[in-house]
């Protein structure tokens, strides 16, 4: 797609209605079944064969995945789980051993599938002697923007990713954080409809991470589908609509973040100053835990129905209540649970083998 005019510096969302693309078209509502999904895989498998040995290693095992248009999709897993393998297959850098996949309805072996794709690889490196703007212009024109459009988009995005003012600096002199930002710029400069980001936050300081989060949220406003892989859970939790967890090449679980958050435990933490003497009935054992920390005690109430009674008991004992905080379920729990399950299944297979 070619924008008719340069991308606007800020998303034009307003009270008048949802955000619009620079060319005036409406973005897709997240989750709408409008045509083909943004990404679809069927039985996608990658087996690595050693060069000299006959040993094989499974990078990806029959992945069936679907990413809906307009959503921000998190792709989670520990190192070596197959996240990068999946992304490289989708972007044409690796050939799958078997299975099929489509981007925006186009099969991945056709070049057309990459026409509206923006990809940020893990730890991107670039050409030593180009400047940042030159590189963005190069990237934009390779993705189909005509000459002057490419130049304008390049200058716009160069500023947008926070590198403005350093347009004469050659890439050889960029810091890791700057390279990461530039990579993100190169993924977005041609206004793609699908963006795949491999560890977009890596190498960035907190300001950088905030900027990237803002950029991703902005893209979501525009209706761009974003698939991001990470092993940093808090970022994923904050940004994603749905999350997939992949372990050892297999897809373990797919869930929406809100399901997860509400489906998790609902303990409440009560912070009390000092270390007061409080007697807890035996019936509460296992549902109320107490931890001493410097200057305070923390009572963790895992059964929410007991909360009022616990608070009453504490006040009666003369304790000074500092804070009452719900402990939300987290992605981390989901992750650990999935990992445990997978290990359990694996050992079960071993036992029965």
């Amino acid at each position, binding site marked *: 797609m070619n924008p008719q005019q340069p991308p606007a510096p800020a998303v034009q969302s307003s009270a008048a209605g949802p955000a619009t693309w620079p060319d005036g078209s409406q973005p897709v509502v997240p989750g709408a079944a409008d045509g083909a999904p943004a990404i679809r895989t069927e039985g996608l498998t990658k087996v690595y064969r050693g060069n000299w040995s006959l040993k094989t290693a499974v990078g990806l095992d029959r992945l069936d995945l679907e990413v809906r248009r307009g959503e921000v999709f998190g792709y989670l897993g520990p190192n070596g789980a197959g996240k990068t393998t999946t992304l490289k297959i989708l972007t044409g*850098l690796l050939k799958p051993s078997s299975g099929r996949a489509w981007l925006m309805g186009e099969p991945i072996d056709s070049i057309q599938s990459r026409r509206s794709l923006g*990809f940020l690889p893990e730890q*991107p490196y670039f050409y030593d002697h180009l400047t940042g703007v030159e590189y963005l212009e190069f990237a934009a024109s390779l993705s189909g923007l005509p000459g002057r459009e490419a130049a304008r988009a390049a200058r716009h995005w160069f500023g947008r990713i926070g590198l403005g003012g350093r347009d004469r600096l050659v890439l050889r002199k960029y810091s890791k954080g700057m390279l990461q930002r530039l990579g993100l710029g190169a993924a977005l400069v041609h206004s793609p409809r699908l963006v795949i980001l491999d560890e977009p936050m890596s190498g960035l300081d907190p300001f950088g991470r905030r900027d990237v989060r803002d950029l991703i949220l902005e893209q979501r406003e525009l209706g761009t589908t974003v698939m991001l892989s990470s092993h940093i859970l808090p970022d994923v939790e904050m940004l994603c609509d749905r999350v997939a967890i992949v372990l050892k090449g297999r897809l373990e679980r797919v869930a929406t973040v809100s399901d997860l958050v509400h489906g998790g435990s609902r303990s409440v933490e009560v912070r009390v100053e000092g270390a007061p003497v409080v007697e807890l009935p035996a019936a509460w054992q296992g549902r109320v835990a107490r931890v001493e920390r410097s200057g305070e005690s923390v009572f963790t109430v895992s059964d929410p129905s007991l909360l009022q009674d616990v608070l009453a008991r504490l006040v009666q004992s003369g304790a000074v209540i500092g804070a009452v905080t719900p402990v939300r379920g987290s992605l981390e729990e989901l992750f650990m649970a999935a990992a445990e399950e997978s290990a359990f299944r694996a050992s079960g297979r071993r036992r029965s083998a």
Partner: protein
Amino acid sequence: MTAVLIARNTFREAIRDRVLAGVVGAGAALLLLTVIARPLAMGEGTRITVDLGLSAISFLGLLVVLMVGTNLVAKEIERRTIFNLLSRPIPRPVYLVGKWAGFAGALWAVAMALGVALWAVVAVLGQPGLGLAIAEAVFLAGLELSVITAIAVMFSAISTPVLSSLYTLGLFAAGQWSDDLRRFAERAPGAMRPMLDVIANLVPNLSLFNMRSLAASGDTAPVLQLGVAVVYALLYCACVLAIGAAAFESRDFK
């Protein structure tokens, strides 16, 4: 066209690289040396300047191909700049052709710069008439370097930088010896002869691009020979790049 974009980018990267500037500097220094050594040459100073100048263009060009050209693709793979390119709607053969064209273009620029410098020196030394012969020799050297670059790009697409350099150097040497191979084949026993002939035809016949023996005397090669050289160079480059593209198509980038 995408190939042109990649070619232009590759050309720009190559030109800004210090190696090429160093090469031009080295060539100029060599020319200066031959001028300084004139008194030793007993009247043959201009011949020595022309011969050494032309040899420098070919030799330095070969060095650049071996040091930088073989890295063209392999380094991009190693440093993963290639991920940013191949994840865009670019057919892989187009990428290879673009890389080759850009780098060969940079080498042509270097050859022409040194050729002009050589002619300027020779003109100052009193023989501006050698200009045409020098131009022709430089043109042929450019063709030769284009062929060697294509070979380097091909190896670079399928192998590591170090191995690519070695293979390219080996094929270059074999190419210089193609005439000797043919002469050897003529005298070889029955079974060996067709095999040697085949090898002699497969390696790049670099002697087609070597008219340096004529340049110092100011003679030029017949137009037919120039035409054959151009056609051969184009064919050979196309063939080698096609091989590289075929191998590159199925390559996985882990």
